[in-house]
């Protein structure tokens, strides 16, 4: 048929262009790297031509920086516009963004052309891709000097285009962070909350988002963040002294690391400083809830007065070991709300109640919504843990079924809830049998316990934070999935340990128990070890002072 065009193989033109580009790149790179001493001006033009085509050649950026530094002069504005060009080619080029920050940080850039131009650049790039994390990062760095309201409006505008944007929510949160206060002393005061009208605005935004699309997690995460504040700094919640062991134990609300060289934690015994050193209950120099210090000599029969000072909040805690007593301790009273959701402590109960209502309303329409179920469970646990325990357990069970991929996470949330609930009602003893616990959180809050019963749970190991239980004498772990003692620290006062019906198969798994000073009874009924040939004998050898029962 006539009129038909004759064609080269498809894309021949494109291939030619690519070959041309490659040839150009090779030439430029050869010139740059081939011989030393290329004059800076030429370096600039060579790297410029390479980078304009492909802004990800790190070598070129490095050569370029060296050349610019050598050249001197006011090159910042022109370099910034060059980088902007490169960013147009690849808006996520690490090299180009780095170059930009480097140029802006030059002392030569005394009056940084930054400010508005930088914001405009970010705005343009974010307009094209609202999730360009480089641009967000750049903008966040700039936002420090910017009008917070304008920034909030900017993030808001991007959200109104598409609210599935974690970066935009995060930007908002960061802007509001100063108002939220970065942690203030104790967990109680109202300091650190957002001003009420602002909080309402944010909550309304969240509400719009979650009702529009409850499956989108970004708004739920933002809701939980905006309701809470920055986590309170660690503080001393318990001091315990044991006469026989001559050990002082200090328990913190959050794991801390005490530097043995320059300890922020100091203690005095009857006015004279303890020499230390401080060691963690787990015996590792890692952040820990529990830090121990040996007393120089076992206190005599006279009353011993101990003072503990934690430098960061300069709080002073005192304990006096009376004559005739084995131990003495001080413990901070427990704040119910903090137990469940420590960061939530400050929010207005009225606001929280409204959020509960909002979640319940949504749950009626969307009974399987993950974000809604989790938020509702946490809110209820923070507001009325005891009164609505049944409801909370139901929501968590629904959540586990609705979101099988995160079943482990849900189990941990549930463990924390059960543990907290138990801590609240605990006296000397605490029983958490058959609760499906996968971990034992809040151990730092249980330091006053003497008896802890955890039979029939899902524990796979002894909790590492067990060291906080300075007073514990009986621990029941029967019917779990424990296979070994592992890294659990020795418990100073523990007499009875029940590990019945756990899959413990060989004696060395229990060897660390030899270091537990007062352990006298070990229950190992219905364990594989009991029926293993030679097992009991080997164990008796390993733990000479312990009375082991296999039935």
């Amino acid at each position, binding site marked *: 048929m006539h009129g038909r065009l004759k064609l*080269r193989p*498809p894309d021949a033109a*494109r291939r030619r262009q690519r070959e041309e580009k490659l040839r150009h790149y090779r030439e430029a790179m050869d010139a740059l790297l081939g011989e030393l001493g290329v004059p800076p001006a030429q370096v600039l033009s060579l790297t410029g031509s390479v980078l304009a085509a492909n802004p990800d050649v790190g070598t070129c950026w490095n050569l370029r920086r060296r050349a610019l530094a050598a050249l001197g002069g006011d090159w910042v504005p022109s370099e910034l516009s060059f980088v902007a060009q490169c960013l*147009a080619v690849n808006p996520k080029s690490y090299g180009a963004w780095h170059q930009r920050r480097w140029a802006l940080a030059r002392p030569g850039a005394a009056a940084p052309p930054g400010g508005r131009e930088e914001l405009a650049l970010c705005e343009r790039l974010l307009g094209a891709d609202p999730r360009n994390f480089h641009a967000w990062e750049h903008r966040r760095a700039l936002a420090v000097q910017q009008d917070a309201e304008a920034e909030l409006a900017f993030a808001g505008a991007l959200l109104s285009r598409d609210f599935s944007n974690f970066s935009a929510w995060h930007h908002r949160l960061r802007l509001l962070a100063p108002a939220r206060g970065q942690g203030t002393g104790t967990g109680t005061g109202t300091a650190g909350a957002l001003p009420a009208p602002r909080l309402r605005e944010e909550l309304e935004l969240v509400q719009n988002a979650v009702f529009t699309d409850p499956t989108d997690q970004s708004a739920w995460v933002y809701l939980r963040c905006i309701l809470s504040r920055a986590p309170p700094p660690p503080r001393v919640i318990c001091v315990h002294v044991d006469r026989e062991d001559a050990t002082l134990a200090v328990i913190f609300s959050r794991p801390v690391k005490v530097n043995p060289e320059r300890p922020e934690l100091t203690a005095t015994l009857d006015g004279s400083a303890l020499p230390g050193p401080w060691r963690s209950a787990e015996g590792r120099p890692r952040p820990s809830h529990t830090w121990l210090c040996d007393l120089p000599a076992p206190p005599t029969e006279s009353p011993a007065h101990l003072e503990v000072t934690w430098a960061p909040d300069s709080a002073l805690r005192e304990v006096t070991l009376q004559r005739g007593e084995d131990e003495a301790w001080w413990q901070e009273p427990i704040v119910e709300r903090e137990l469940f959701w420590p960061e939530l402590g400050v929010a207005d109960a009225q606001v929280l109640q409204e959020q509960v209502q909002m979640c319940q309303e949504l749950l009626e329409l969307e009974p399987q919504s993950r974000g809604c179920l989790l938020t509702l469970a946490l809110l209820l646990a923070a507001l009325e843990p005891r009164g609505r325990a049944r409801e909370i357990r139901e929501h968590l069970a629904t959540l586990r079924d609705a979101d099988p991929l995160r079943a482990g996470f849900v189990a941990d949330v549930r463990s924390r809830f059960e543990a907290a609930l138990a801590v609240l009602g605990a006296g000397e003893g605490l029983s958490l049998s058959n609760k499906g616990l996968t971990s034992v959180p809040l151990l730092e809050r249980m330091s006053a316990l003497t008896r802890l019963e955890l039979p029939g749970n899902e524990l796979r190991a002894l909790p590492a934070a067990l060291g906080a239980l300075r007073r514990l004498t009986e621990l029941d772990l029967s019917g779990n999935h424990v296979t070994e003692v592992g890294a659990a620290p020795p418990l100073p006062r523990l007499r009875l340990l029940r590990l019945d019906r756990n899959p413990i198969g060989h004696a060395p798994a229990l060897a660390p128990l030899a270091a537990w000073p007062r352990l006298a009874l070990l229950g190992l009924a219905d364990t594989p070890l009991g029926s293993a040939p030679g097992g009991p004998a080997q164990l008796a050898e390993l733990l000479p002072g312990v009375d082991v029962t296999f039935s």
Partner: protein
Amino acid sequence: MADNLPTEFDVVVVGTGLPESIIAAACARSGQRVLHVDSRNYYGGNWASFSFSGLLSWIKENQQKADLSDECEDWRKLILEDEEAIPLSSKDKTIQHVEDFCFGDQDSAEGVEEAGALPKLHVPGALAAQGESPGPEKESPAVEGIPLGSQGSPAVEGIPLGSQESPAVEGIPLGSQESPAVEGIPLGSQGSPAVEEASPGSEKENAAVESPGEEPQSCSEAARAAAGDGAGAAPGPGAAPSTADGDSAPQPAKTEAAPSENAAQEPKKITYSQIVREGRRFNVDLVSKLLYSRGLLIDLLIKSNVSRYAEFKNATRVLAFREGKVEQVPCSRADVFNSRQLTMVEKRMLMKFLTFCLDYEQHPEEYQEHESSTFAEFLQTRKLTPSLQHFILHSIAMVAQTESSTLEGLQATKKFLQCLGRYGNTPFLFPLYGQGEIPQCFCRLCAVFGGIYCLRHAVRCLVLDRASGRCKAIVDQFGQRISANYFIVEDSYLSESTCTNVCYRQISRAVLITDQSVLNTDSEQQVSILTVPPLEPAMAAVRVIELCSSTMTCMKDTYLVHLTCPSTKTAREDLEPVVQKLFNLNTEKETENEELEKPRVLWAVYFNMRDSSGVEKSSYAGLPSNVYVCSGPDSALGNDCAVKQAETIFREMFPAEEFCPPPPNPEDIIYDEDEIEPEESGLNNSPETKPETSAEESSSEGGAAVTKEE
């Protein structure tokens, strides 16, 4: 000159409406020799758009309906004995009941002339199509050398098809890797450079416009011109297509300065004389449609790369008319999130329902028991509040309340939702400079691949070969016989005797020029679609499309409002009640406050257009198998009907050929050194470097006459 047309083609297409133009383009693209003629002096037939003065003359023409010339039957002599003639109609009877109204001081407009208007040639038939540019009034701005940059102006707003959602990003062509590439059509990046090259052009148009002084042409010149007809007449979309880089942005500022002076002193007080003077700013479509962003037409525009010839603007909002008030319909996820009128529960219920509609086929249990009921009834069972039901039924699904079944409604809703988000927050695109651009864009592709164009070129009859029963030629108004294998004829060209058994529907149309939007918001530049539910049960819903001046279809501070519905009576009887509900028709200042809030109508026209869609070919009497009939515009919102028809006809003619495949990369084309074919320049879309050269750039014996006139 007419006898200088080649006498042999593969395909002859009569009529330049959308389906005909698509077929012509597809045929030329697959290597057929195409002759494309239209007896009118503008492109598009009933798909055309007009400047204001162009529209006025169109109205006059259709109101008079006088026989211009008695039929000359000379052509009968050319029919041989073993042949039979099927005469074609020379009169267009598709437009009826044209009534126009001016609500301002019309007298003051006496003697006011459209700025830049051409002295019009009225020599029907004579020297028809030399270098006539389509829509002459609109396209020939520069007789006095007034640099009307307006043609290229909307650069920033135009949406280059194919690049997914590119909100004008100030000149930085962001890589497509950023945009959520729904489909990997790299048109945005690939197509745009070429388009850019094509943009410097408005002066050149001049060259293509025939000027009276040069009329007498020697025969040999005419011969070239004939071949070059495709060239001269190669339809240039009004928009000098330019990319969104804002090159030409400064220009419109200049040209708009004049009208805005007035506007600044007395805002929104537009007089009739201003409308006449600024008439060139209007591009009034005879059909009012929008492009579904995942509709067949968009797919075709992208696939064939015809999109490079046009620019588009997103419809910005979907409106509803409920309880006497116009409201915005939240239809996308972002809309629902931002909406202040919906309660939280409504937001959830609406989103839930829309999400269900997106894959309703997967959940038959949700709708199965309602399959026999109407969609409206189905909505009532879905825990949706009345306002939500109204939004979904009328503004999203846009189906009839009393007739449409549940499945129809679900399908329509799904289509709407699928189109969301491809180019913006609504499912619709509107071509800048009007819907009339689209047929011209396809004509242009046809011309680029060698199609020959003749406007004002009437065809007298089809010549039927008695023995084979096939059509073998046409006879045109000059008595020239042109033979071909296939013939495409638009319905309105068929004679009464051919159409006796055909039963046509009618479309009622109204076009209004108003002084403000039906729903004022912070932004004046809105493109809105509004469905007004039937005021009486027996009537149909009325579709209202309101265009702002940035669509390049009306002058600054005015809005162009299109109303469309299937006819039950005359257009005015059908549509005036809705116009009265939405607009203020009084010329004097009204005392009632309510009336004052409504937009004032400055000028209006009503007409009925014949809807020849959906007519079976067998209903036409005595048409041979190689004659295909294209229908005129249908009443639906989208263009799927026309595209489907074009594709079906093309496949029947050439089952083995691909339909409008992407054009090859110009650099991949091999030109034989021996036969120097200047095709390349055309395929390149590169502009002529010297504006003074005429637009008829090249021709060759293959009939490949290729040109750019912009």
